[in-house]
């Protein structure tokens, strides 16, 4: 009776109900994960094409031929969109959040399983619609992942701005709806489905990060949806929300009075929280992994929670720092600048707490730990350029240079990806019942860490030297000629890094079938997912409802029989 009340659906029998239209949060989580995996391969391939084009602009590629300037812009757009939405938003939250959150809080499933399934399938449709933009007349849109109007608002603005751009916006709108359904589910699950004894302040930091991410998504995606609707109306009905009076190819467009800045405000009101939607789950995973593999409680649990909350809150007040170039009043720019630099405070709290967790720990350098340390490293080196760009006086000269891609790739791109890798290596045994190969994981780690640094650190230098971003060819810019060797080096580094991902892919699929069998708790971790079978049964705890007695990171507890105390271990620990 009790299991039934919270887990309304029985274990399904048929293949389709079990693996395709599944209501099980674990299956849906894996569906999200593999969706993101295909998306990251597409996005990575596009980035490879861009890197090749930047250094060999005249190269004719097999099957693709010459890359024209507009094709290059399509590559920029689709790389950014696919990576931000279908990888960085989908894998950490939809994938791991879906799979792990209910187990970690001791629930049999998400609060609304049907909504969960709908959310995944809407995301998949959005992804297919996005990919379809490659194959329509005119190809994929040119307007970048930020979709700035009026370029994105006029059908005649460029070759990809016809049907391709319509598909792009439709896909984004669908993605918004899917993310809202997901966010609603995460919030309700976290608030209402926690096991007995699992107070909010006993939740693992991963759960906190997914919960805060869901709140950010709930508040942000509605705004992007509204902007998308307005943009679709501008493009197809002839309204003028975003398009001012102007001409395209010498012809009046028929629009007048709209404001391109209105789009930027709406977009970045979503866009900045989106950055945290991508990185917060990585912070949660890093905290979890660093604590487990240092055999120490996380340093400053409450400070970590409040830091994440204040990052989330401040994240809604800083969107203007993406718009310093728009000619905004210096007073607003100053306010946005101060708020932005204020985010440095909770970010530093988190960093120091991670370092404090590592300090004097009995470190176990296994694959999840390596990637978590890599996450911290990238978070610091990518984050340090944030306060530069937060100042209008520095942002204005740097804004359209390679400095900005260098900054956001390190912190939002690669750091978040390292969070995903850490999560993959950490939870793989629970998900598939087997261990991933440690030696391949190390190869993967060192090549990826050094490779990504070699790709993205020089971008800061290129930016300071004045190399513009989004240019398809730099051959005409004579002042950049001496930087060509550095650009080539970055392309070689990108090729090596991408090759290292093949090692990961091989390890992933090989380990699913051939890896060493994993025990229920291979990392000797404390949270609830390690108390259940590997892989977990359909209702996660096989009819048993866990009861929580301890905080999430009870490692090296003095007087305890082992060096870790599970959250569900009854009170053997004496207060001291």
């Amino acid at each position, binding site marked *: 009776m009790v299991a039934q009340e919270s887990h309304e659906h029985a274990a399904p029998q048929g293949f389709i109900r079990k693996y395709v239209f599944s209501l099980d949060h674990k299956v849906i989580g894996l569906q999200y994960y593999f969706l993101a995996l295909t998306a990251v391969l597409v996005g990575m391939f596009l980035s490879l094409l861009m890197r090749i084009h930047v250094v060999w602009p005249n190269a004719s590629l097999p099957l693709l031929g010459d890359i024209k300037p507009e094709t290059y812009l399509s590559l920029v757009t689709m790389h950014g969109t696919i990576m931000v939405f279908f990888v960085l938003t989908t894998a950490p939250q939809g994938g791991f959040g879906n799979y792990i959150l209910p187990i970690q809080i001791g629930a049999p499933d998400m609060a609304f399983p049907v909504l969960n399934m709908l959310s995944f399938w809407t995301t998949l449709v959005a992804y297919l619609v996005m990919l379809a933009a490659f194959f329509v007349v005119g190809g994929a849109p040119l307007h970048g992942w930020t979709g700035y109007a009026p370029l994105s608002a006029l059908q005649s603005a460029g070759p990809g701005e016809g049907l391709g751009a319509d598909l792009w916006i439709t896909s984004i709108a669908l993605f918004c709806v899917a993310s809202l359904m997901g966010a609603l589910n995460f919030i*309700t699950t976290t608030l209402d489905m926690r096991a007995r004894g699992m107070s909010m302040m006993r939740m693992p930091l991963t759960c906190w990060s997914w919960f805060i991410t869901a709140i950010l998504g709930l508040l942000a995606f509605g705004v992007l949806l509204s902007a998308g609707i307005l943009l679709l109306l501008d493009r197809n009905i002839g309204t003028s929300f975003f398009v001012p009076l102007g001409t395209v190819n010498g012809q009046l467009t028929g629009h007048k009075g709209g404001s391109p800045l209105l789009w930027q405000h709406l977009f970045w009101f979503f866009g900045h929280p989106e950055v945290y939607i991508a990185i917060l789950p990585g912070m949660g995973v890093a905290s979890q992994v660093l604590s487990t593999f240092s055999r120490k409680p996380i340093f400053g649990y409450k400070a970590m929670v409040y830091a994440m909350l204040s990052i989330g809150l401040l994240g809604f007040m800083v969107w203007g720092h993406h718009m310093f170039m728009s000619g905004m009043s210096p007073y607003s720019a100053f306010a946005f600048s101060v708020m932005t630099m204020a985010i440095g405070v909770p970010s530093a709290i988190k960093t120091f707490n991670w370092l404090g967790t590592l300090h004097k720990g009995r470190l176990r350098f296994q694959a999840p730990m390596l990637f978590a340390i890599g996450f911290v490293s990238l978070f610091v080196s990518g984050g340090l350029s944030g306060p530069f760009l937060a100042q209008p006086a520095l942002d204005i000269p740097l804004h359209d240079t390679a400095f900005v891609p260098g900054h956001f790739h390190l912190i939002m791109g690669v750091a978040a990806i390292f969070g995903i890798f850490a999560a993959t290596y950490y939870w793989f045994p629970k998900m598939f019942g087997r261990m991933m190969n440690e030696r391949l994981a190390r190869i993967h780690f060192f090549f990826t860490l050094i490779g990504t640094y070699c790709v993205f650190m020089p971008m800061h230098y290129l930016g300071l030297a004045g190399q513009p971003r989004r240019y398809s060819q730099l051959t005409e810019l004579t002042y950049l000629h001496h930087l060509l060797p550095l650009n080539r080096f970055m392309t070689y580094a990108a090729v090596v890094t991408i090759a290292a991902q093949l090692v990961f892919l091989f390890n992933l699929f090989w380990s699913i079938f051939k890896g060493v069998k994993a025990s229920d708790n291979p990392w000797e971790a404390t949270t609830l997912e390690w108390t259940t079978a590997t892989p977990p049964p359909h209702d996660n705890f096989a009819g048993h409802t866990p009861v929580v007695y301890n905080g999430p990171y009870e490692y090296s507890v003095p007087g305890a029989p082992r060096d870790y105390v599970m959250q569900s271990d009854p009170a053997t620990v004496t207060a001291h």
Partner: protein
Amino acid sequence: MASFTPAVSAHHPTTSRRRDSGLPPGAGGGGDGRRPGSPDYRARLRRARLGLASALVSILMLFIAFTSAYIVRQGLPTLDPSTNKVVHDWIPVQLPTALFLFNTTVLLLSSVTIELARRQLVRQAALEPVASIPGVSLGKDRELPWLGMTIVLGLCFLTGQWLAWNDLASRGFYVATGPSSSFVYLLTGVHAVHLLGGVVALLVAGSTVLLHRPLESRRIVVDVTAWYWHFMALLWIYILALLEFAR
């Protein structure tokens, strides 16, 4: 389904070596609904309401974004190419106010009927155990079909909105005529789509018997839809006030 009541341990799970321990039982986690003997229905209802509250927040954000766009767009000047002067292109739309007020009345009435439907189901649920006692009669069921009336009123409202759009169009205000008319169609249209969702939810609730769903599900759907419906009524009043007083 083979399942059993978990053996909840006798001592409360309060021991931890940190200060965030000493929780009163029940304060931690959503354990309330799993108390043995407490009806499944209440836990499900609370969960559904929590989900709805989150959904309403996202809908609110959508309309806040539209409102800020409305205010920004209203204040924007534009260049008139024929005279080369900066002008304002915001032409106030003459709303079909009488029709809108009629629609408002219909919507508010439907808000009342859905509340009655919700309470009717709560009452039925409360009386269920009594009614099942043999020999006890609660008198003839002469309760009005509030749910059906709400669906009809909701469809009336949507039809009324359709007429209002026709009226606007007949006077030359189309979606793309000017920024003000775009917003009139946008706000009323997105609201109508949301209300249509409410009507669909009520149709689902009305056909639970046909769909072989338990009566409890029907009660939860009606309850959640009722709160949603009230929100839509408030939202409509807000939209009307915005269009009427901020043109």
